[in-house]
């Protein structure tokens, strides 16, 4: 249960966050797969396009402040491991100027494209952490999702990673159509047997416009009933916490010292800089997104030194809503005092008395200054957050 978890533990060997700058996110928009549920910005891998992307990225990185000292670096996508070995090498070279000692450096890898040479490259570059997109051990479920790996790839590649990368995070998806509670239990058991340092456990979301959502619309795919989905979520929580993992955010579980520092910065509303097409940056109240347009990205950087961007100004109301949203999703919870200082009024007032109702319904737990989701509240966190927003 979220509310029973211990407070944040400092990552070993790192006490200097204050002097370090925003997190750096790098979006690599290529995949070999076309996952049916995916709504990330990505295009099919093409050799030439990947080279052009790296050209653009190099220009965009050049444009970052010289003294940028990113406290974490996270390379995601897409599928960074879809790049060929030499391209991956070039990418690591581009990032090297931002390497700092003790930094968390994460790469997303996928069981199909992560070959030994690529993994060794990551190892040599001092990558501290990989996020491993296993998703499920069900062969037919993997096919339905449009993933190109099979269950057998998971253990094999995991083994390669385990020996070379200090911290491994393992992605799992539940509530897959046609997959029962027992099969989900099997996925959890199999994943826990590998004892990854971190687990990211997601429920399948039918994002509008994705092939999977459209199949549901046509009646070809039947989503898992809500009640079963809830059971699956509760099972994940109890299995993972039972195995000694800390449940520190709605979908994140870690062994001691293995929280994702990069992701935590999002939830703490710290600044972050994103590079690559489709990447987001937030610096104070300014939030920008590089356009989801690879060609435009490369052209913009070549011609004007900047990619096309969309911009959003966050007002105080938006920042407060995000504060509620992000804080409540974490085990550390929301500090009532901190809220009052920011908002100039209490959360009880801000929510028009709903906070009290949610606490009395035991959907939220108040522990001194902290408000956290209860296990019951975790299941309906979105609604709770909406209730508290002004």
């Amino acid at each position, binding site marked *: 249960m979220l509310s029973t978890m211990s407070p944040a533990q400092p990552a070993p060997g790192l006490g200097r966050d204050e002097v370090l700058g925003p997190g750096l*996110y790098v979006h690599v928009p290529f995949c070999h797969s076309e996952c049916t549920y995916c709504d990330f910005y990505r295009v099919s891998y093409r050799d030439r396009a990947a080279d052009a992307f790296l050209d653009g990225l190099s220009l965009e990185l050049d444009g970052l402040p010289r003294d940028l000292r990113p406290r974490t670096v996270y390379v995601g996508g897409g599928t960074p491991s879809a790049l060929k070995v030499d391209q991956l090498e070039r990418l690591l070279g581009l990032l090297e100027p931002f390497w700092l000692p003790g930094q968390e450096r994460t790469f997303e890898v996928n069981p199909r494209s992560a070959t030994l040479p690529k993994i060794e490259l990551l190892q040599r570059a001092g990558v501290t952490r990989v996020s491993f997109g296993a998703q499920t051990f069900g062969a037919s479920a993997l096919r339905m999702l449009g993933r190109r790996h099979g269950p057998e790839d998971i253990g094999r590649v995991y083994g390669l990673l385990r020996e070379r990368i200090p911290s491994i995070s393992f992605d799992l998806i539940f509530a897959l159509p046609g997959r029962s509670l027992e099969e989900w239990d099997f996925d959890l058991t199999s994943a826990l047997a590998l004892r990854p340092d971190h687990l990211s*456990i*997601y*429920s399948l*979301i039918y994002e509008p416009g994705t092939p999977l959502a459209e199949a549901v619309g046509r009646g070809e795919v039947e989503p898992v009933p*809500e*009640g079963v*989905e*809830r059971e699956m*979520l509760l099972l994940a929580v109890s299995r993972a916490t039972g195995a000694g993992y800390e449940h520190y955010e*709605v*979908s994140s579980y870690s062994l001691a010292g293995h929280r994702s520092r990069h*992701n935590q910065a*999002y*939830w703490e509303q710290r600044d*972050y800089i*994103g590079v690559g097409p*489709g*990447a*987001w940056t*937030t610096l104070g109240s300014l*939030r920008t*997104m590089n356009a989801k347009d690879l060609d435009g990205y490369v052209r913009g950087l070549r011609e004007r030194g900047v990619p096309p961007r969309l911009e*959003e100004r966050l007002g105080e109301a*938006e920042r407060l*809503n*995000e504060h509620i*949203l*992000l804080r409540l*999703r974490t085990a550390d919870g929301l500090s009532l005092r901190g809220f009052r200082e920011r908002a100039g009024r209490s959360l009880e007032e801000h929510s028009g008395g709903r906070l009290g*109702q*949610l606490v009395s*319904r035991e*959907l939220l737990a108040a522990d001194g200054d902290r408000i956290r989701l209860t296990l019951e509240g*975790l*299941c*309906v*966190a*979105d*609604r*709770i*957050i*909406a*209730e508290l*927003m002004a």
Partner: protein
Amino acid sequence: MSEPAVDRSRIRNFCIIAHIDHGKSTLADRLLLHTGTVSQRDFQDQMLDDMDLERERGITIKAKAVTLRYRRPDGEHTLNLIDTPGHVDFSYEVSRSLAACEGALLLVDASQGVEAQTIANAHLALEAGLTIVPVLNKIDMAAARPDEVIEEMVHALAIDPGRVHRVSAKTGLGVPELLDLVVERIPPPSGKEEAPLRALIFDASYDEYRGVIVYIRVVDGAIRPGQSILTMGAGRRYEVEEVGIFNPKMQKLPALRAGDVGYLTATIRNLSDVSIGDTVTDRSRPATDKLPGYKEPLPMVFCGLYPTNNTDFERLRYALDKLRLNDSSFTYVPESSDALGFGFRCGFLGLLHMEVVQERLERESGVDIVQTAPNVTFEVLVRGGEMIRIESPTQLPDPGRIELVCEPVVRTTIMIPAQYIGSIMTLMEERRARYMRTDYLSQSRVILVYEMPFAELITDFHDKLKSLTRGYGTLDYELVGYSPEDLVKISILVNGSPVDALSFICHRSVAEARGRKLLKKLKEEIPRHLFEVPLQAALGGKIIARESIGALRKNVTAKCYGGDITRKRKLLERQKEGKKRMKSIGSVEIPQKAFLAVLRLDEEK
């Protein structure tokens, strides 16, 4: 004064009347264009339908006056035209227009033929003593059947077939000749210009800058800026600021004289000071007799209107006051509901009227409104012999005090192609209707006359009639009286507490079935909450049906990283906004649609 006066014998005041969609506004367009009142450049289709709601729905809601200058060899004529709505709910607009005219163009669609409001409106015009010019419209259409339709006109309205003029309002065919017929057949106004001023107030609107704009038909005398006037009914005094005509925009004139139709302004700020049907006269030389005015229409359908946000009560009252000026056919009195707080019980002429008023209120005032399900009026005989009228289910006295409950009965005239008689008769049986008679309008079209409870008519009868007759069925109704029935009140409890705004009155024989259906509908309409919401229907303290809206079980999205935050926040903010538009009762949020669920109990799932 010295302004040149139009020769009174060169004025014609007329309106266009017809069943809905027979082409009145389109004909008005042609007349505006042909007389050069509007240039091609400024023109748009159904030009006089200038309210947003009229354009969106493609129907006329308000009668609209406009002055045309028509030149003929014998000189220029001033034609004051009023385009009227055709829907039965707006027939009060027609009656008011008739009182400002000497003649009426009775339009009949050459493919649809004579329909319910053709007859109803023709009778209104005849009763008002108007000269009728029968016009057959849409003769350009492939489906036109002019001879048959003229035969229907002869049969239903005793019209001389030789006097029916044929036009196409779309192509303009026959329109120039029609203008001459207006001049030749309709008599000029008969008022006396030398007599003391008498002008009939037939409509009004409100303008933030000029105050109330009063629409008048000058019957006797003349009216000018600077003149001191008196409203004979309300007894208010004003100084005229401006007079003019509609062209179709307002156009200032030095004076309006006997026979003219136009407007006056007098810095009238108090909305309730102006009453439609009142007579304007000269203060220094008042007329002795008021003009007859109008019979106030009797509202037939009632519902509660409440501001979604309780603090908007006064704004809603102001919006009602303002709208009432422009639509004197609805009524409103404050009421309060345990569930909804303070609001108004409003009376309307029909369901479309109700919808239109509600939409106009929301648009013209920006107040979000919760509307309760409509109901009819009931007459209740209470112990001790007193008869009371109730306009809301909550007003029904304790069962112990009730001797009798009577509901309104209407005579319903249904016009349909003969092949649908069977299905309509079945429908009528289901609606507790009593058959009166059948008339043949022509070989293929019949008129069925029934008496039925009005309550049955307002619960989606019109839609049923339309769908059973492929759109060809039309209906008209009038109140014939109240009849005692075994009527009971069903109360609805949401999360254990009664929600008065959901209660309804119905016949005992259907009480249980209706209660059950309503709960099913409510279950569909009320979103799930973080807790289970039980729903119950009760008849006099006894629960007759129950349902339950299960609690939300899982509602949490997995990912929330850098690129997800904006989207996720906006999603939740929208959810939150949606909730603000719902009415919060106890801790349950009830959307507007739920309050109207009782109307749609007959819909199949």
